[in-house]
């Protein structure tokens, strides 16, 4: 057997209160695309941080082509041919592509030479990119290209990619995969982190599955069904949300011809948005992050006021109603950002239950607050949505992301909304809890509520929505019936590849 490129042997890393990696071992072969699968919190990030020299393992060792490998810092890892594309880009909006790439280099060459090299690499790998464009003007897919090219300039032996497709449209994903396949053909190994199983099945040669910090199995993705991999990730059989056929009632909420300027320099303006959602219907709104999702939620929740007629509830204009007045009318919302928007981090869960519950749960009388009743409400949420916390007196920030998300969604669902707007309802939530949240949205719709689900997770939208529309640069596509939509059609609704050409490799 040949020596693997990178061999991990018994890597262990513990943080106070949690073992992030417990004696993880696996090999990455030369020229192999190796998938690292696992739920949020399974220890994927810690593991790659150890490989990239950001975190030191407590025990265990790594061998790079048979030689001991223990990078003290990312610079050392890079020197040994390890490169990493992070999930969150670290680029400066105001600088151009070449300047951004030069910033990450030890000894940046002359700008002209660098630009030439960027062009060369980008052409070789089918990643067209103009080195002199300002990063602020690039789409998410193009920004990712900057990061990838930054890595490729180092001529890496191992390229680590952390959830690279979460910000891409299906067409952009296709381009990325062509690039990765070309890299593999040239002998570069790729460690590909994702929880999107279908992607892994098309792309990866081998997969290692982590659960609670342990290596729980390996498989060849092309020969394993997505369901089997999911069950290995979760460790139990998955409950798929049950959807019953429902009759839709009259239009509950409607937006007509709404345009809203961007609230800040980095926001997105909404342009001529039309939208209707009927009683009992779930409207899924897809789109890549940063295309107006936050702004749309603000318009629906009442945080952003518009012309009165632009937003209507049961035919009544509510565009000038603030969040409190809308809650009284039955319009509830759960924003994407849990800490700081949907919940106040340092306040207790009881106090956070008051945040949106005061009107509909009768927690306030003449301005005075009924904390006893609020605590009961918080306890009801904790119980109904299985929020893991010692009690409602704990601060919101002490909860894990997934648990807080359950609390935030539960808080709105339990108030029996007529219209519920959620943005990224299962972001960062483990599969079992995500299924529970989706089920609760389906149940709510079955009871006759109108649900608008904004999400970047297309699988989620296909699972629960009755009709589907996509946001692209602040424009909302015409909604279509969700059943029968193909991935290509969805991708085109999301704006295709944002003007990027498909790579000709």
């Amino acid at each position, binding site marked *: 057997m040949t020596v693997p490129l990178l061999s991990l042997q018994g890597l262990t890393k513990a943080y106070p209160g949690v073992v992030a990696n417990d004696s993880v071992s696996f090999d990455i072969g030369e020229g192999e695309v190796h998938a690292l699968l696992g739920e949020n919190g399974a220890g994927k990030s810690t593991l790659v941080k150890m490989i990239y020299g*950001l975190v030191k393992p407590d025990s265990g060792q790594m061998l790079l082509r048979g030689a001991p490998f223990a990078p003290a810092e990312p610079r050392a890892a890079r020197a040994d041919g390890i490169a990493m594309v992070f999930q969150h880009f670290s680029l400066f909006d105001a600088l151009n592509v070449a300047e951004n790439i030069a910033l990450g280099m030890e000894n940046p060459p002359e700008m002209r030479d660098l630009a030439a090299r960027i062009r060369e690499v980008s052409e070789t790998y089918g990643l067209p990119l103009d080195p002199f464009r300002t990063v602020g003007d690039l789409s998410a897919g193009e920004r990712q290209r900057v990061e990838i090219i930054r890595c490729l300039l180092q001529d890496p032996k191992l390229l680590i990619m952390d959830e690279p497709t979460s910000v891409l449209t299906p067409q952009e994903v296709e381009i990325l995969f062509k690039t990765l396949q070309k890299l593999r053909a040239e002998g570069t190994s790729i460690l590909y982190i994702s929880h999107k199983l279908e992607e892994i099945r098309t792309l990866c040669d081998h997969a290692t599955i982590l659960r609670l910090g342990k290596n729980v199995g390996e498989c060849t993705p092309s020969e394993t069904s997505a369901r089997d991999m999911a069950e290995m990730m979760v460790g139990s059989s998955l409950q798929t949300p049950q959807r019953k056929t429902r009759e839709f009632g009259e239009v509950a909420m409607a937006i007509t011809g709404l345009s809203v300027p961007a609230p800040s320099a980095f926001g997105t303006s909404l342009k001529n948005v039309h939208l209707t959602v009927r009683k009992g219907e779930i409207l899924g709104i897809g789109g890549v992050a940063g295309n107006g999702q936050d702004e749309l939620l603000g318009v629906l929740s009442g945080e952003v006021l518009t012309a009165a007629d632009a937003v209507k509830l049961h035919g009544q204009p509510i565009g000038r109603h603030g969040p409190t007045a809308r809650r009284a009318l039955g319009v509830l919302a759960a924003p994407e950002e849990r*800490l700081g928007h949907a919940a*106040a981090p340092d306040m207790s869960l009881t106090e956070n239950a008051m*945040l*949106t519950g005061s009107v509909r749960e009768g927690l306030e009388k003449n301005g*005075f607050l009924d904390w006893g009743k609020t605590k009961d409400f918080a306890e009801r949420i904790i119980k109904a949505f299985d929020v893991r916390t010692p009690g409602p007196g704990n601060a919101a*920030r002490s909860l894990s992301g997934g648990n807080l998300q359950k609390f935030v969604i539960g808080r709105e669902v339990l108030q029996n909304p007529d219209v519920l707007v959620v943005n990224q309802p299962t972001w960062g939530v483990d599969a079992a809890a995500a299924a529970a949240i989706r089920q609760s949205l389906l149940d709510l719709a079955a009871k006759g509520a109108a649900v608008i689900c904004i999400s970047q997770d297309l699988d989620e939208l296909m699972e629960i929505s009755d009709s589907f529309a996509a946001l692209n640069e602040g424009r909302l596509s015409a909604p279509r019936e969700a059943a029968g939509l193909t991935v290509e059609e969805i991708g085109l609704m999301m704006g295709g590849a944002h003007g990027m050409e498909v790579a000709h490799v």
Partner: protein
Amino acid sequence: MIRLEKRPQPSRAWSLATPLVAVLATMVFGGLLFAALGKPPVEAIRTIFWEPLFGEFSFYYRPQLLVKGAPLVLIAIGLSLGFRAGIWNIGAEGQYIMGAICGAGAGLAFYPLEAFYIFPIMVIAGALGGWAWAMIPAILKTRFGTNEILVSLMLVYVAEQFLASVSLGLLKNPEGFGFPGSRNLQAYDSAHNAELIAGTGMHWGVVAALIAVIFAYVLLNRHMTGYHIRLTGEAPRAAKFAGVNPARLVLFCLGMSGALAGLAGMFEVSGPSGQISIDFNVGYGFTAIIVAFLGRLHPVGILLAGGLMALTYIGGDIAQSNLQLPAAAIQVFQGMLLFFLLAFDLLTNFRIAIGKPEVA
């Protein structure tokens, strides 16, 4: 390696212990400072903290504690509401001056009429004066997005000029032999904020301060407005999501702190001070900022902090005269108190961990 780790939950124990630890640290380092100045440190600390309460002349100093503490608490309570919401009124001194001028002006307008309604009118005029002065930064902020810190602070100097102007003109005592300053309100029964019980220092301002403490406590813990104030301070976006109107909150917080500062000025001018004069203000409005933070922006804490601050003032005066400590040393001492408080405050949300650092 020593490093700080964020606590998952704010520590309740540290939150309560911080002021005590800060006072102790101030005693230690203040003592060192006094020793460096060639003064007996233990004696100096004892003079500052012990003499006013239990010393030989405490019968004189104890009422002074109330007289000095009341305006500090009254102003600090108002400031704390805004500070909780991230609205920084630094100009309480100016609002205090304007409250005093309006209160005294309202009273003197009736002179020499004696009537029961004069004092209540002065109270309202004082509160309105401070409120109106605070509305200037409030409206400028909500309308044009100006920085309330700068505007409120600069208005202090405007108020000081205005004070000098009325002392020399509008409110000047016609029978004052040309000296600047108004008539003495202590000599005008209907307008005099006299001691409620003779010899205790207990005047209406002390009562108002206690009411303000209770009011603020109920507001913050049991009322929607108080909840919105806290929410805005901790998570402005969440507050907006909860339905808070930020502009209304700015008007409320600045108005409230202005009104309370104005009240403090009015009670001062009609009582302990007696008259409007060029040097009427002595910095209560600025010291109240320290009091508000020393009390951790909590009403009960502010009550205690106001007492402590008054104590260091009076004790500092005694130390100056008995031990010839320079006034600047007393100010450094008071500054240390705030510094240590803020420094130890860190431990509420962080813990010190000794060991190897983790990267990322």
